[in-house]
């Protein structure tokens, strides 16, 4: 056996009930390399890595670490083998300092000598070029600082193999490049690093090799130097697809939604939007960028009438030329003006659809009080449901299937399809492609593009800056509830947006969702 091999997985299979999450997957990680595991949502990347970190146990197959066949039954076993995983959801205790979180649960001198522990941590921090104050409390930290704590925690426990699950999902471009520098330093020190991701440009930028999974199957591994974005996409999706977003020129500027100096507070009295003003135009896609929890959700909800506004007002200029102040109207009345909001929360079903109702009924939620009869009319909604299913290729046994039985991507298509079908004048979408496969994502981008050409004012909150820059005409940047810039998406650089995302006086979002 090659001594350079850190981890080898052979024919690993994992089933959850009838679903095969990993089917005879092979994987090889060398010492001192950065390996990307690429695949769409639901392709089994995280499941595979959870078997290395001791969270799941494989149904069959062999795991070899440093040439020795091993059995990993718990996170403790994984740690003993030098495998550490940094999950997407951080496991940190808010009221403790970084150092306290790092040593949590470790054996050692019963009496805590925080000084020498902090010194040890500082040594690690200096060695790899982290930016971390071990004595800072977690609740005072930004998302990227918390991630740093997680990485240092794993290193402090002596991990030789680090697994990072979608590490850049919550980072700004600047923070991402800082993270990549640190990871390269670790590679130099001989550590093996596995990154789970679906972002192609990061794969190309960072990794030495790429392993692609698709629907639980092992597709293949390539050296990054031999790979191209097109090749990787094809491996990931299984067919050639066009990655260009068809962006048309915006229609001439006609103000549609005018947000004037609005300030909102959350339940705890913390200002979540501070003096935000902008005007969206008909026939454009206006993007909203920002670190998670910077006030994007509240902004859309304020326009939709779902969020109480402390000061400021929101005006709606209808295509007919009337101007209405919608900030003191009820949510239902705002909807009647054809201002619609499609918000895709993290658990997808949380807002907008009722899980136990079927497709038709969910469509009716939007139009149940339109008819004049005492009994609701199910005919038209049913027709519409059928049309959405056909047009957006929703995979469902029938339109009578309860929504919760569908996969996340399909649920999302129905939500968006319903909102678009009402031919809104203002269409607000938040995270419209969250968790969707590439094909469906592009389908949705094109749907938004269609709406724009029809003259709707589309407002889109997104996570992926590359996509926002390719899709939108203008981008509003929020940082800690403040508007830090309105930029032209065609000419701005990603780094410039990144700077705006963090340029608030108070340093961004501390209460990320």
């Amino acid at each position, binding site marked *: 056996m090659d001594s350079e091999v850190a981890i080898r997985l052979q024919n690993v299979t994992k089933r959850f009930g009838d679903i095969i999450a990993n089917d005879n997957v092979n994987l090889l990680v060398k010492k001192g390399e950065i390996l990307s595991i690429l695949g769409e949502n639901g392709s089994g990347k995280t499941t595979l890595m959870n078997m290395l970190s001791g969270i799941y146990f494989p149904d069959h197959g062999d795991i070899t670490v440093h040439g020795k066949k091993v059995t990993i039954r718990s996170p403790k076993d994984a740690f003993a083998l030098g495998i550490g995983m940094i999950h997407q959801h951080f496991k940190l*205790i*808010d009221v403790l300092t970084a150092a306290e979180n790092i040593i*949590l*649960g470790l*054996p050692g001198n*019963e009496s805590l000598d925080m000084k020498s522990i902090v010194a040890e941590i500082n040594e690690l921090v200096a060695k790899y070029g982290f930016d971390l104050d071990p004595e800072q409390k977690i609740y005072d930290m930004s998302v990227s600082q918390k991630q740093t704590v997680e990485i240092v925690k794993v290193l402090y426990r002596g991990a030789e193999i680090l697994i990072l699950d979608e590490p850049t999902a919550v980072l700004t471009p600047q923070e991402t490049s800082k993270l990549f520098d640190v990871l390269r330093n670790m590679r130099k020190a001989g550590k093996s690093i596995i990154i789970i991701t679906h972002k192609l440009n990061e794969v190309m930028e960072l990794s030495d090799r790429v392993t692609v999974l698709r629907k639980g199957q092992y597709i293949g591994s390539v050296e990054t130097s031999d790979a191209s974005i097109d090749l990787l996409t094809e491996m990931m999706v299984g067919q050639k697809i066009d990655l260009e977003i068809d962006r048309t020129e915006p229609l001439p500027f006609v103000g549609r939604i005018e947000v004037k100096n609005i300030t909102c507070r959350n339940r*705890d009295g913390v200002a979540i939007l501070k003096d935000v003003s902008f005007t969206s135009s008909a026939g454009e896609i206006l993007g909203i960028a920002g670190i998670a929890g910077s006030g994007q959700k509240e902004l859309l909800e304020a326009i939709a009438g779902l969020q109480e506004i402390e000061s400021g007002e929101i005006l709606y200029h209808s295509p007919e030329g009337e101007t209405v102040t919608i900030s003191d109207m009820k949510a239902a009345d705002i909807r009647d003006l054809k201002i619609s909001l499609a918000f895709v929360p993290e658990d997808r079903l949380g807002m907008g659809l009722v899980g136990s109702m079927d497709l038709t009924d969910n469509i009716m939620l939007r139009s149940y009080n339109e008819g004049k009869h005492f009994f609701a009319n199910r005919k038209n909604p049913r027709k519409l449901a059928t049309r959405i299913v056909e047009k957006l290729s929703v995979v469902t046994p029938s339109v009578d299937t309860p929504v919760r039985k569908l996969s996340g991507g399909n649920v999302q298509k129905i939500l968006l399809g319903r909102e678009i079908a009402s031919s809104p004048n203002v269409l607000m979408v938040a995270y419209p492609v969250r968790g969707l496969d590439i094909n469906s994502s592009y389908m949705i981008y094109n749907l938004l593009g269609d709406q724009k050409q029809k003259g709707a004012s589309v407002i889109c909150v997104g996570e992926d800056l590359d996509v926002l820059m390719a899709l939108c005409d203008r981008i509003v940047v929020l940082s800690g509830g403040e508007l830090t810039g309105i930029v032209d998406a065609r000419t701005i650089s990603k780094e410039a947006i990144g700077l705006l995302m963090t340029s608030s006086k108070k340093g961004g979002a501390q209460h990320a969702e």
Partner: protein
Amino acid sequence: MTILMTFIQKAIGQSISILFGATGEIITEKSGNLNLGIPGIMYMGGIAGLMAAFFYERASAAPIGFIGLLLSFAATLIVSALGGLLFCFLTVTLHANQNVVGLSLTTFGIGFGNFFGGSISKLAGGVGQISVATTASAYRADIPVLSKIPVIGDLLFSYGFLTYLSIIVALVIGRFLMHTRKGLNLRSVGEDPATADAAGINVTRYKYIATTVGAAIAGLGGLYFVMEYLGGTWTNNGFGDRGWLAIALVILALWKPLNAIWGSLLFGSLFILYIYTPGLTRATQELFKMLPYVITIVVLVITSKRDKLENQPPSSLGESYYREDR
């Protein structure tokens, strides 16, 4: 001057039970268990100690105070620890609701105390006839030389050993929580058991040990009341609501045993202030008795302003921990 001196001495006498209870409840709550059974457990601890001393003195022709002390001390620790263990079994192992279990435990504990208190009263020949004079005097023995110093001796060294033990226990628990690894692990269990679990900490074991030890410490508060305060006898419901004051003190002390020491003094003083305030009618007396609770409410109002996360209760307080299905 003498009145002030007596007042301080009496206030300290009131505060020791409350301090034991609060220290026990703090270490319990730090594990995420809200043990509202503490008032009942203090009754149980008190009666257990009294019974051990009572039967020892009855059986022995010439009882030795020190042996009576050891027996009653051990009985208190064991019975009150069993109370904590019962709480843990129901809430940690069976995931029962902590508030319901705690409140029933308090009701049970008070009944337990009064039942056995009544039983041994009968054996002793009637209400108020229980006397464990030998053991009680061992509990009441002050510090030999130092207590003879004028003023200072009366003020600081005229108490039985449980008084000093209560302060030492509070200091030790305070140091344990903040400056040891196990203390750090325990705090993390109370804050976020899932994270602690992921870090390899045995959540169940920490909850069991903290709650049981906490209950044992609280039980000493009952023992103090019976032996040193009452001088070795029992009156039904005599302990009153000192147990609830102990729980209120946990909040006042912001979950820090060090604060509980001065907090207990404050509560002790307020508790008897009405006796030393001249010119009170029966009605105004009741107003004075409210003071400890009023202070607790004021502290709650102030701390709920969320100035600092450190001053908040442990985040998982009162919640059962289920390991996520894997």
